[in-house]
């Protein structure tokens, strides 16, 4: 009761009167609480984003001392009319699509497996969760080694079954598969966790009722399990799609975009433009096109989250 209005969150309570009182007015409490987060975000994230957004309208090259001049939308025009951009988007779509699909399937099956309680589940679950904790670099390096035709264990095992030498990364399709497998291996556990969270949220009595009602496991799955996890699956798709869109290290290490340019994703293309070609402005324009796509995906994602929240209510 002795604690009066000065006792607000985020302050040490001493300020009274003047600016202090103004600041601590309960009307501003929300704004005050948000301030530290927004400040950090602004300085570390939003400012650089605006900087590069501004750049996308100039002809700036980071390697050149020339004063950049304003070019309006010409960078966007150039990026959007470049055949390579569309090729890279196609490659990215194929890799993102197949990787996310594989993650969903594997993650989903793993989740079904771990939905039951069994002895040592905590330990066995850790075996499956570990890939997520590795760095992209080490996953890339070791999968590349696994695929290596002479030294790789994958090649060795495959060679036991074929007479032709197994050369995983020798064709565009094989290289895409190699990347997709590595990425999906690493991130399927993430999908698994999402789905598992959905599965464990299904009340057990529904399964008991279905058992008493003698429902087949197929019918049980579609009437009980699936409705509970479908929005989580959508969540998983969108979240993984957004993240896989940024996939860089694994591609760069395993294939460097090869053979030819068959695995060059947008992220690798962006890297080359920004960091190797020093097309700073053009790459900023490309990045904003990517961001636009990602924002569309994010909106879908939020829609999914909101729907999930509504269902839970």
């Amino acid at each position, binding site marked *: 009761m002795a604690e009066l209005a000065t006792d607000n969150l985020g302050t040490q309570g001493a300020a009274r009167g003047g600016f202090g009182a103004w600041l601590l007015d309960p009307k501003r409490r929300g704004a005050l609480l948000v301030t530290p987060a927004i400040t950090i975000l602004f300085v570390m994230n939003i400012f650089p984003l605006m900087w590069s957004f501004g750049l996308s309208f100039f002809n700036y090259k*980071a390697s050149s*001392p020339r004063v950049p001049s304003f070019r309006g939308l010409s960078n966007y025009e150039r990026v959007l009319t470049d055949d390579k951009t569309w090729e890279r988007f196609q490659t990215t779509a194929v890799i993102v699509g197949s990787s996310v699909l594989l993650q969903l399937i594997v993650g989903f099956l793993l989740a079904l497996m771990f939905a039951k309680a069994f002895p040592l589940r905590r330990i066995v679950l850790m075996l499956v969760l570990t890939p997520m904790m590795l760095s992209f670099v080490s996953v890339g390096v070791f999968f590349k080694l696994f695929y290596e*035709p002479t030294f790789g264990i994958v090649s060795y095992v495959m060679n036991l079954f074929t007479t032709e030498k197994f050369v995983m990364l020798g064709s565009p399709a094989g290289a895409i598969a190699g990347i997709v497998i590595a990425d999906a291996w690493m991130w399927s556990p993430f999908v698994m966790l999402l789905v598992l969270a959905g599965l464990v949220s299904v009340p057990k009595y529904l399964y008991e009722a279905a058992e008493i009602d003698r429902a087949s496991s197929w019918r049980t799955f579609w009437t009980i399990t699936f409705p509970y996890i479908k929005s989580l699956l959508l969540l998983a798709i969108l979240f993984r799609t957004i993240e896989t869109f940024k996939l860089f290290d694994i591609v760069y290490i395993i294939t460097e975009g090869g*053979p030819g340019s068959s695995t060059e994703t947008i992220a690798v293309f962006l890297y080359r433009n920004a960091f190797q070609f020093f097309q700073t402005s053009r790459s900023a324009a490309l990045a904003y096109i990517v961001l636009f796509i990602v924002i569309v995906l994010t909106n879908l994602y939020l829609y999914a989250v909101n729907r999930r929240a509504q269902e839970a209510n």
Partner: protein
Amino acid sequence: MKTRNVLSGLMGATVLAAGLGATPALSADITITMAAPDWPPTRFMKEHFDQTYQSPDGNNTTLDMDFIPWPSFYERVAASLTSGEQKYQMIVTDSQWLGAFVEGGYYLNLTDKIKEDPELQAIMQDLHPALVSAYSTYPHKTRAQLEAMGPAPAEGVNYYGFPQFPDTYVTFYREDIFCNEGEMAAFQAKYGTNLPCTYEDWQDTDWQKWGQIGEFFQRSAGEMLAGETLADDFYGIAYQAGKGYDFSTMAINAFIWQQGGDIWDESKMPDAQAEGVVNSDVAVAAFEEYLSYLQYMPPVAQTGQMDIFVIQDLYMQGKVGAIIDWVGLGEPVLDPSASTVSDKSAFGPAPGTRKADGSIDRTGNIGGQPFVLTTWNSDEVVNEALNVVKWWLSPDTQLAATANGGQSGLMSVMAMPEYNGLRPWNRAHVEMIDWQKDVWHIPEFFELLTQQQEEFDKAITGQISAKDALDAVAEFQQELLEDIGFIE
């Protein structure tokens, strides 16, 4: 990081100078921060500096090396330079980066310093002209142009870098199988020519024989090799055919140059063309020859990933008889903990193209790295940095570097009688360095390189023909170079 920056060093110098009054020689605390890839030749430089360096101006000088992992070296340096961080006083750089970072205003033009300083002039004149051309000049001057212009500093030439580690391609080969009598006889019987065993044999080895070696030693598990049964497949030859960075370009350029073809030659700007040169019939034939030997190489060749490290590993693990690789990757081959062939290896010059007169053209693309100074430093720091350059390029330091796995670019050092004996590949290296040329130095080199690597990779992995690849390269280069005004 011993964070004593240049500024505080200078302030220390001022105070010290005031205290000493009339003493003519000013001594100062100077820290030179150097961006360096993390590997033995630079580690040696740092260690040896700490052990031996004495500033001739009496400065208290610290060489603060920022060791950056090789695979990330370019990103780190590029980000530092283009952001204006001004962190480094010296930078180890690939010769191709010269254009981009000179034009950016980051690398210091040393022409005037060289003009003023006889010691530096002596060093420049003692450096092998191929190295001066590749490592130091921008705009790029070829060795022939430099030699025509007279001793350094020549009028109209801008000088930037000095060799930190000059590197060339040489042949690493398995003495135990190449000098195996049974194999030698079989080879002789099959091809009517000798299997190269000695250094001199390799001096007479051209690409045709290289291909024969590849065909000859391609054996499956269970077959015999030099009297022993193979547990695993074995291959005769390997050279790099990797998509990464500049890997396949380095090897392919050698074929093109040796056969009389050319890449777009920036030293003849703006008259040099890409279209018609890059994809000339000669160049196409050279590239086709390069591709024709891939069938004799380990299966990783089909992936476009057979880079300098992959062939080194294949060689060290005893999967391949001979490889062409950088001298800089030689040390591990002799290390028994990394290599199964440490006691069976010998080195020779890389093969080349036999000319009409019977001699062999070994023109190759130079490797290795120069180091440069940066533009934002005070005279005092620049002068001390040049002292470090002189220390590094002194015969004693260069000999010590060579003994510890480095290489020298000084002709006087390379001519020393003990030089060839310091490391087993030195003789080949000295022979090869005379053949070196370099790829482009222009700021847009990375765009040229990336596109070219991509097309080469398509040809290497069998997606398109050599001609299609070079046509695509020529078209792209022509358009890009016309765009920026390098081709009129």
